[in-house]
């Protein structure tokens, strides 16, 4: 029988009450006395030299309080990359400065070069239109291949190249991989594009700054997934405001998907403006600004080769990728195509040789950074497409060729040929589960039924492995990370026994306010509704790294466990005194401290009260109060894995693809709240299917974003998606965190694109269109029709 509370129960998401009734409090909902409005002036050309900016007329317009240009920030720091990558020759990556406002040059359409602060937004907008900027347009470079050619226009003149780095992983494996491929009996080669995506969080980015001249304190309300990281970047790198004078608050945030991990110039601008005019300054992006200035995702151009025996045994994977970083390095743009992509290029497989080469390329486009999945979708898509192609060439069933190459359950812990140590997994069991879910025996009947309606039915499958909770800090430091990757939690037991848990993770849709209390409630034997989660305010929570990379439960949840362990340890000391027993004899179960072997016990609430009203208290041994903090730095990544299947119908006359069935079998380790996990998978699948079929980010050759609104950028809607079959009963717990959890937030987006594309190729082959071996995402009707008729 399913549990109705605590770990393993599908407790209803308590935060949904406010989200669904319009009572959420987002940055744009906050109104401060005397607030003013910022409007940004953004470049309409992709590459240009700013010859002059005349703000005289704008500054004199009604309601205008201040006008800023790049010159005002020429002497402050740049927004840095969070990870240093070295090229194969040992040279550090090129790292041009990313200023608060563009200065001297604009480098992509949407690059902000001025800002107006006024009493009203309309006044600020009027004044922004009155700013006269002379920008000498220069040829733009959008295509990565062209950007790397000699004589290409340069995005950053001062570095003399558009190549950020040329990274090899693992460089020592290169020669062996080359040799293995040369000697292999069968090599399958695939060139593909992993399409650029616009994040499109429902809530656009927004920031409001307040400055208190009386104390010199700044407060920044902002749409962030990690307020402490934002504070650190602003303090240590950009504006130099001391951390103790800057409070960053990320209240309710309406989705991030990665795009709100990063610090953006607008945050620094409103802070500087609030100080200058002595009043709060607010800004909320329009949807058009979001399209042009949020960090985009993906955008790889890849060649992958799979060498195998005739029986399908994998010998080697060799990958060459160009990764677009856009016009500036966003905070994790250099880690995403490298350590979150290259290290996953062995997949779920016991393949002996893997080599990956990634060239990161500057172009005159919006910056590109981690977006739901971040590198792992790119890795999974390349691997699982080329494996599918090889299976077809060799005449081997697509699930069977994968089974033959899986790392086997008795091989864990297993060090992959790409250098990661997988702790647990059972990939064969996932495929078994998947086969039970998809009624494969009924497929041919369904295919005939489709054919009778003039449609081509295809079945596509894939597996995936991903890496969550990126860690440990010691290792990533060696690899170039400039931040730690721990997280933190404080458990504060109040005198009356209810509890506040202050966490470094940030919830912007993930359900932390429900799931974290389930963990604590189980450990302390209390009602989960007596536990409150506090997050998103640097003045209230310990220094944590926030939420990204499916890390919250695995990393921050582990910190919660450790802090709660400390509460129990201290509670035992207090209980021992209350029960007049030795501390070693105290046991704690179901909320009761008891003396082993006796019927003497005291409840958790009584111990809490004693901690705060410490009469008759062993003050020489124990401090009053019941509050503990823990920082948790994981020993390794966690490794969720899964097996997915998709059935599509293709209309060969129009090229339209309809996803008819989708099944996802995932191994997330232990599951705290199955309903939330299912919801996370659903959301990820929607984004993955969106990438595969709909989402098309198109810049023209001059660097104009053609798909800059919902008129041309197709987001997945409910009727684009099937009812999903989701299963997470395969559970091989993570071995190195106390909850045994692996992370589920990105899996759906990572695992789903290849099975959709594989299914379409399968459908076309069934219809006799065997010349079609690959179509680049998104598989729009026009692209599928063109492929059929090519």
């Amino acid at each position, binding site marked *: 029988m399913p549990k109705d509370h605590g770990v393993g129960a599908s407790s209803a998401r308590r935060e949904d009450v406010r989200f669904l009734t319009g009572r959420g409090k987002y940055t744009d909902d906050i109104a401060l006395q005397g607030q003013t409005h910022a409007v940004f002036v953004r470049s309409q050309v992709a590459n240009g030299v700013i010859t002059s900016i005349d703000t005289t007329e704008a500054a004199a317009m009604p309601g205008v309080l201040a006008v800023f240009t790049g010159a005002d920030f020429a002497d402050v720091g740049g927004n840095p990359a969070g990870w240093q990558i070295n090229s194969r020759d040992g040279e550090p990556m090129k790292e041009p400065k990313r200023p608060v406002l563009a200065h001297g040059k604009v480098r992509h359409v949407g690059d902000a070069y001025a800002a107006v602060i006024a009493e009203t937004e*309309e006044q600020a*907008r009027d004044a922004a*239109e009155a700013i006269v900027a002379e920008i000498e347009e220069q040829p733009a470079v959008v295509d990565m291949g062209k950007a790397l050619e000699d004589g290409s226009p340069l995005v950053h003149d001062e570095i003399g190249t558009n190549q950020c780095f040329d990274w090899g992983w693992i460089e020592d494996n290169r020669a062996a991989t080359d040799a293995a491929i040369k000697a292999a009996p069968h090599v399958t080669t695939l060139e593909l594009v992993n399409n650029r995506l616009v994040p499109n969080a429902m809530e656009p980015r927004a920031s409001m700054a307040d400055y208190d001249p009386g104390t010199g304190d700044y407060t920044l309300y902002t749409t962030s997934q990690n307020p402490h990281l934002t504070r650190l970047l602003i303090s240590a790198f950009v504006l130099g405001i001391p951390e103790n004078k800057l409070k960053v608050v990320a209240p309710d945030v309406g989705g991030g998907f990665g795009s709100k991990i990063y610090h953006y110039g607008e945050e620094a601008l409103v802070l500087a403006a609030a100080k200058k005019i002595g009043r709060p300054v607010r800004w909320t992006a329009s949807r*058009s600004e979001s399209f042009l200035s949020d960090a985009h995702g993906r955008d790889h151009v890849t060649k992958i080769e799979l060498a195998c025996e005739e029986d399908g045994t994998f010998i080697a994977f060799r990958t060459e990728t160009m990764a677009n970083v856009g016009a500036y390095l966003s905070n994790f743009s250099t880690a995403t195509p490298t350590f979150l992509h290259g290290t996953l290029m062995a997949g779920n497989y016991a393949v002996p040789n893997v080599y990956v080469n990634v060239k990161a390329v500057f172009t005159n486009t919006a910056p590109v950074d981690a977006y739901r999945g971040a590198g792992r979708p790119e890795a999974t898509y390349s691997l699982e497409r080329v494996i599918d192609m090889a299976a077809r060439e060799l005449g081997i069933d697509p699930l069977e060729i994968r089974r033959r190459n899986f790392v086997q359950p008795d091989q864990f812990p297993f060090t992959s040929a790409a250098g990661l140590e997988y702790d647990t997994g059972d990939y064969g069991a996932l495929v078994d589960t998947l086969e039970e879910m998809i009624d494969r025996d009924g497929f041919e009947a369904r295919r005939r039924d489709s054919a009778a309606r003039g449609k081509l039915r295809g079945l596509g499958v894939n597996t995936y492995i991903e890496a969550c909770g990126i860690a440990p800090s010691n290792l990533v430091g060696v690899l170039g990370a400039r931040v730690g990757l721990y997280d933190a939690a404080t458990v504060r037991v109040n005198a009356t026994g209810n509890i506040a848990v202050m966490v470094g993770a940030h919830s912007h849709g993930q359900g932390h306010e429900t799931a974290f209390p389930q963990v604590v409630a189980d450990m302390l034997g209390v009602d989960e509704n007596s536990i409150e989660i506090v997050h998103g305010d640097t003045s209230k929570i310990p220094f944590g790294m926030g939420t990204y990379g499916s890390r919250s439960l695995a990393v921050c949840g582990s910190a919660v466990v450790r802090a709660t362990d400390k509460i129990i340890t201290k509670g035992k000391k207090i209980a021992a005194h209350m029960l007049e027993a030795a501390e070693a004899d105290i046991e704690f179960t179901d909320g009761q401290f008891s003396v082993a072997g006796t019927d003497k016990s005291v409840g958790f609430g009584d111990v809490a009260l004693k901690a705060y009203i410490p009469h008759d208290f062993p003050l020489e041994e124990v401090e009053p109060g019941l509050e503990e903090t823990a920082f948790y730095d994981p020993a390794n990544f966690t490794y969720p894995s899964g097996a997915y299947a998709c059935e599509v119908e293709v209309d060969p*006359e*129009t090229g*339209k693809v309809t996803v008819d069935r989708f099944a996802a079998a995932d191994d997330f380790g232990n599951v705290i709240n199955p309903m939330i996990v299912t919801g996370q998978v659903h959301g990820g699948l929607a984004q993955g299917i969106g990438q595969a*079929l*709909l989402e*098309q980010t*198109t810049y023209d050759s001059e660097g104009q974003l*053609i*798909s800059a609104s*919902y*008129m*041309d*950028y*197709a*987001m997945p809607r409910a009727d684009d998606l099937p009812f999903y079959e989701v299963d997470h009963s395969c559970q091989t717990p993570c071995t190195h965190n106390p909850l045994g959890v692996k992370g589920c937030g990105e899996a759906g987006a990572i695992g789903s694109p290849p099975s959709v594309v594989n299914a379409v190729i399968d459908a076309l082959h069934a219809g006799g269109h065997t010349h079609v071996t690959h179509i680049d995402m998104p598989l*729009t*009707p*026009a692209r599928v*029709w*063109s492929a059929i008729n090519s």
Partner: protein
Amino acid sequence: MYAFDLERPGRIADAVKLLSDSEESQPLGGGQTLIPTLKQRLAMPERLVSLTAIPEMQGVCLSDAGEVCIGGATTHATVAAEAGAYPALAALAAGIGDPAVRNRGTIGGSLANNDPSACYPAAALGSGARIITNAREIAADDYFQGMFTTALDEGEIITEVRFPVPEKAHYEKFDQPASRFALTAVFVAKYADGVRVAVTGASEEGVFRWSEAEAALSADFSAEALSGLSLSGDGMISDLHGSGAYRAHLAKVLTGRAVAAAR
């Protein structure tokens, strides 16, 4: 959005007067194109004259001649619900945009804007409708004059649209995946005196009649009758959602499907 004055007259004559008063006045139907344009600051009218408070321009009725007559300011939702005498037309209205769009957008607004990918132009041209304005009556064949261009004069208002009801008709729409406007769509209507075929979403000239298909279908109202025909991709819209050749191909496929589905 720049500031503007808003007038909501209750009579056609008052609306016409307000529009002729000033060159800076602009009529506002349901606002499903104009309001987003204003929000982007891409237009700066001094005055908007809303046409949605005029009772004479509201509603659906059947004329003595058996035409379905629709007031110019009637919303798509109302047409979907009340134009049951012309099922293909009601179904077309029910497929425009989403409920929010259908509850605001009007037939007159759509026809006056003549977006090359809109649905209503296909129905009007495919039905040989009569566009009634405050000043005159315009046959659909004379009304559509190219992308975003119509026979309307400055300040002229569509007060009503009259649709002859065919024996059979169907609107076959292929959605542009993002906007869900017609990537290409075809309205086929079979009348006693012949078949009309109107194609929207495809041509750079906006909605057009496919006369070869009309001739073939007038002789034999079946999808097979189209087998020897084809449209050229020249002059068709080519964008990130499909080439001209693709749209030309779609027009033929959709015409066949519309014929097969016509009721």
